[in-house]
């Protein structure tokens, strides 16, 4: 008996279509949760609504007709009010999208409605991808594409099953036949039963093909440098999630260190330049007032006016002297101040940015906190960052007392506080002729001796400045207190000093070969002025002597101490790959890729030619060798074997193709033959097995069904035999 392959009926097609549409909507709504636009509650409600309608497709019939009539006016009104109140266009559009998806999710859909949910979902995913530049976008867009294509294909097949007519939309309030008796488990069983591994493999292969083709298109699409970029970020305002602003209160940095998420990654073109203990400078805070350090207005003016540029030139050693290129991938929400090690020769963005910068102070500030990952490249940057050359300050220092802005010496404290600091300075001793470094070492030693380190410091209560009170006590403190104390003591001794905030250290990702710096690496330290060398010297009161030695290490020894081979490093390497090869892919990268492909093709051709010529030379040498009996016999046997094989192939006695053409090599026929030998089956099953074994292919019943029944027959006959043997015993 010839059994026809099973197919989904029309109701099952509609159910599957409903399922896929719901999954698409769930996937796209989930992206709102990491957009950080304050719509998480709405997204949760929408998710819940879609999920309920998805699981119980009969429920949408209960939506009253007046709700359908009022839906669109209500959605439009909500959008208008939302824009009016929040004033932000993009979040309002996202919320509008959510409402539309919710409406579509709780209504029965026609073909155009399925298309709508594809477009609405794609909008959410693409916006989330553009704003967050997250690796998750890649996974989401791929899954979304697969589901969307499957949905559209199902819609086409369902329409064809209905004779080319678009499926009639259910009358409002009436449950369509396919939705009235949905059994999802049964549907999945049916899908399993009718699935054909060849079809699934073809579908998977085609999808992989789509991904590969899209990758090739991505690389091949010509890139042009256009101005006026970053258009989406203008429509959304995001605050920095961390405390790296231009004023800090004590404890801000310590709060950041509680967060272990990644702040930025750094690629280094020459790992030999990798320092063991890098200090990533971000902001210089030179004014102490009201118990906190901030960037003074005068120093802020040193940043110059805002410019729109993609290239910043600094005063660093130059690309020739330090050939390493540092590529930073700064995550969103860290700060608008860019972390760098120190003076640089050039800093480049992928596209023009609105920046203010001071090459002398080695500070670069974007206009706004970036809403997405920001990549920039720094060339000619000294990797140790121990000294920061500041020509501008050197000039003012030389002309001090005459004119000019504050010299980062004073502090706005009461006389009593100043006296207290002076007393502490006296305990340390004044600066000597050995230079400010020697004084700094004494101050740091004193601070470490008198104050233990703690992330939860206790500042004694009392009158006066809190930092001075802490200095006078023996309470533990965190890095901000130590740095602040150092600065006050240095200034009290007449040495210019300021606080620097940023990050310290990091780990080296063993898989992607880059630095990974987390928010928990946030740190504050100090810098003092060395007038003789006209540089700022980095002084970290919390760095012990061993750490100071460590900071001098570079290269493999330095990396070895930072190596991270954990699972999180493995996952992070995917993210870095994403940033390197996809997000940061620009015209130069495109040219480099094409060049690399061309070189690889050329090299492989050369390699092949070399290999062939070497093989030919070896063969020639071998042939010229002395011929003896065994050699002649070997050659004779080899030739005979080759000729014999050729003869067998030519006469058809030996088939090279793995695909069976004849009856003997067909795997289905072989399996049918095995079953015929093994089982004692009912006549119908034997006839089908015989048809599979001997009959022509078009008359075959479905082999998987027949073999399944044969397996059942075999197991039941085994049970009977066991039962009969037990009875006889």
């Amino acid at each position, binding site marked *: 008996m010839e059994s026809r*392959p099973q*197919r989904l009926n029309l109701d099952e097609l509609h159910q599957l279509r409903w399922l896929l549409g719901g999954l698409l909507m769930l996937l796209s709504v989930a992206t709102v949760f990491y957009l950080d636009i304050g719509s998480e509650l709405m997204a949760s409600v929408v998710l819940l609504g879609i999920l309920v309608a998805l699981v119980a497709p009969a429920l949408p019939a209960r939506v009253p007709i007046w709700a359908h009539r009022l839906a669109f006016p209500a959605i439009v009104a909500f959008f208008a009010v939302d824009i009016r109140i929040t004033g932000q266009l993009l979040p309002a559009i996202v919320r509008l999208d959510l409402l539309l998806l919710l409406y579509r999710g709780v209504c029965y859909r026609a*073909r*155009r409605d399925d*298309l709508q949910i594809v*477009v609405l979902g*794609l909008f959410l995913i*693409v916006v989330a*991808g*553009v704003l967050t*530049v997250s690796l998750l*976008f*890649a996974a989401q*867009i791929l899954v979304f*594409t697969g589901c969307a*294509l499957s949905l*559209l*294909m199902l*819609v*086409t*097949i369902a*329409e*064809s*099953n*209905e*004779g*080319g007519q678009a499926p009639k939309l259910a009358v409002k309030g009436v449950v369509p036949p396919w939705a009235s008796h949905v059994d999802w488990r049964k549907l999945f069983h049916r899908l399993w039963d009718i699935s*054909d591994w*060849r*079809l699934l493999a*073809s579908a998977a292969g*085609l999808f992989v*093909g*789509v*991904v590969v*083709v*899209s*990758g090739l*298109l*991505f690389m091949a*699409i010509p*890139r*042009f*440098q*256009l101005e*006026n*970029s*970053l*258009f*989406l970020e203008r429509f959304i305002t995001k605050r920095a999630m961390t405390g790296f602003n231009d004023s800090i209160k004590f404890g801000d940095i310590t709060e950041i260190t509680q967060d272990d998420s990644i702040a930025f990654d750094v690629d280094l073109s020459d790992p030999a330049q990798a320092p063991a203990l890098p200090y990533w400078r971000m902001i210089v805070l030179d004014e102490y007032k009201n118990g906190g350090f901030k960037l003074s207005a005068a120093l802020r003016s040193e940043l110059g006016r805002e410019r729109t540029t993609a290239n910043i030139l600094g005063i660093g050693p130059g690309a020739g002297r330090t050939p390493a290129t540092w590529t930073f991938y700064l995550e969103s929400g860290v700060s608008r101040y860019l972390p760098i090690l120190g003076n640089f020769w050039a800093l480049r963005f*992928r*596209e023009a940015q609105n920046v203010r910068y001071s090459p002398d102070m080695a500070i670069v500030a974007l206009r706004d906190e970036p809403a997405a990952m920001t990549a920039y490249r720094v060339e000619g940057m000294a990797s140790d960052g121990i000294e920061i050359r500041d020509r501008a300050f050197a000039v003012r220092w030389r002309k001090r007392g005459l004119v000019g802005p504050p010299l980062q010496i004073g502090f706005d404290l009461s006389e009593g506080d100043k006296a207290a600091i002076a007393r502490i300075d006296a305990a340390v001793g004044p600066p000597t002729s050995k230079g400010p470094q020697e004084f700094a070492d004494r101050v740091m030693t004193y601070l470490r001796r008198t104050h233990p380190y703690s992330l939860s410091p206790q500042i004694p209560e009392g009158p006066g400045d809190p930092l001075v009170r802490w200095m006078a006590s023996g309470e533990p403190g965190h890095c901000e207190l130590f740095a602040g104390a150092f600065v006050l003591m240095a200034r009290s001794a007449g040495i210019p000093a300021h606080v620097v905030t940023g990050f310290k250290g990091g780990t080296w990702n063993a898989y992607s070969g880059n630095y990974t710096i987390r928010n928990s690496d946030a740190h504050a330290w100090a810098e003092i002025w060395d007038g003789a060398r006209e540089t700022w010297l980095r002084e970290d009161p919390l760095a012990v002597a061993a750490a100071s030695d460590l900071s001098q290490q570079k290269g493999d020894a330095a990396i070895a101490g930072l190596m991270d081979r954990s699972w999180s490093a493995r996952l992070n390497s995917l993210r870095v790959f994403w940033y390197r090869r*996809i*997000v*940061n*892919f*620009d015209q130069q990268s495109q040219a480099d890729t094409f060049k690399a492909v061309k070189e690889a093709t050329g090299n492989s051709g050369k390699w092949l030619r070399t290999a062939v010529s070497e093989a030919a030379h070896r063969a020639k040498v071998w042939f010229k060798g002395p011929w003896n009996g065994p050699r002649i016999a070997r050659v004779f046997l080899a030739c005979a074997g080759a000729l014999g094989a050729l003869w067998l192939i030519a006469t058809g006695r030996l088939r090279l193709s793995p695909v069976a053409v004849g009856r003997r090599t067909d795997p289905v026929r072989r399996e049918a033959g095995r079953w015929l030998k093994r089982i004692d089956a009912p006549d119908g099953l034997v006839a089908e097995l015989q048809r599979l074994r001997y009959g022509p*292919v*078009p008359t075959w019943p479905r082999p998987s069904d027949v073999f399944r029944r044969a397996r059942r027959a075999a197991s039941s006959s085994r049970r009977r035999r066991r039962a009969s043997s037990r009875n006889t015993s």
Partner: protein
Amino acid sequence: MNQADGSNRRLFWRRVLWGLVWPRRFERIQPTISGVVLIGLSLGIGTAAYNSASNILFIALALLLACLILSGVLAWLNLRKVEWKLEVEPPLQAGQEAGLSLLLRNGKKFLPTYALWFEFAAGPFERREPSRPESTITAKGIDVWAALSKVKSEEQRGTVHLRTRLDPGGEARLDWMFTPPRRGLLKVELRGVGSLFPFGFLRKQAGTDIFRVIPVWPAPVEYRRLAGGSPRRPEGDHRLARVGNEGEMIALRHYEVGDSHRLVHWKASARKRRLLIRQFSSQNSDACSIWMRTDAAVWTRPEQFELMVSLVATISQDLFRAGRLHSTAIDSGARVAAKRLADLESFLDRLAQVRTAPAPTAPYAPPAYPTRTRLNVMTFEPEGTRGVAAIVNGIKTAAT
């Protein structure tokens, strides 16, 4: 030689690329609403990508373009190795529903075929010299739109969808019913095969060159038999041999033109040195021979002429079923015996295409009948302005 090889290779690849881009003959690809949305979306995302230099948007654009490419590949695979064969079962009669079948076969090994539709058309077929192409823009003296509208109005069109999938190696049969409006040569053709598969972005239609030209017999018409109109038994002992006779052999007679060779009695013929055929007891002697004349002078009204042709067809079929149809003739053409079904069908095929003939310069000579036979000859005349009468030996035997 190397230069020639190089230029040949370049030419080859150019042709391949051009073949991918330039649409093939008889093929048409139209974007649907989904396709237009997809194209618009791609343009929008592409514009945003270039405006923002965002690689995320470039990725989205690349995926959309890859989906379009996939759609084309799947559409091509869907139609690949699908064979079809058009079958029309004659006879077709005007005014009566007829059907044509399309046999489909999917020659692929493991990919099914989905969502096809087939466009059929049935319209009058006229044999004429191919005319030069005309354009509605430059046509002079020819109302091309009117001609196209006339063709469209005379044509019947239908679309049949393949509702289930066509499994690899599987076959299916699709039927399309249509009603030929009038007699004549009918051209039924498979105009095209279309599909929206896989995603409904593009409506792909491939034209085919498959058609059949089939004669459509005249429509049956009701008529009334009139009293006294039964055909006269011919004189003499003439018996008419018909194939498939029943009963005992009762006599031998001389061979006459049109007699079946199977009835020849060879022994007796050898003895007599003349062909003799066997006569059986059940032979019918009320035979009738139909002679249809198509003088335009007689049949001045086209509708009356059509009625006459329909009456001839109906009566000839009735007589054949009754076993009384001897032979048929049209105008001065040769008399053709109507012994077998194929003879009747051949006559009906001629009736399908018959037209009024200009009046002859000389009176018609009646068809030659065997000299020893005087058959009932049925002719047809107009009756009034609308009717047609059948006359046998001067007596009206039937009328519409």
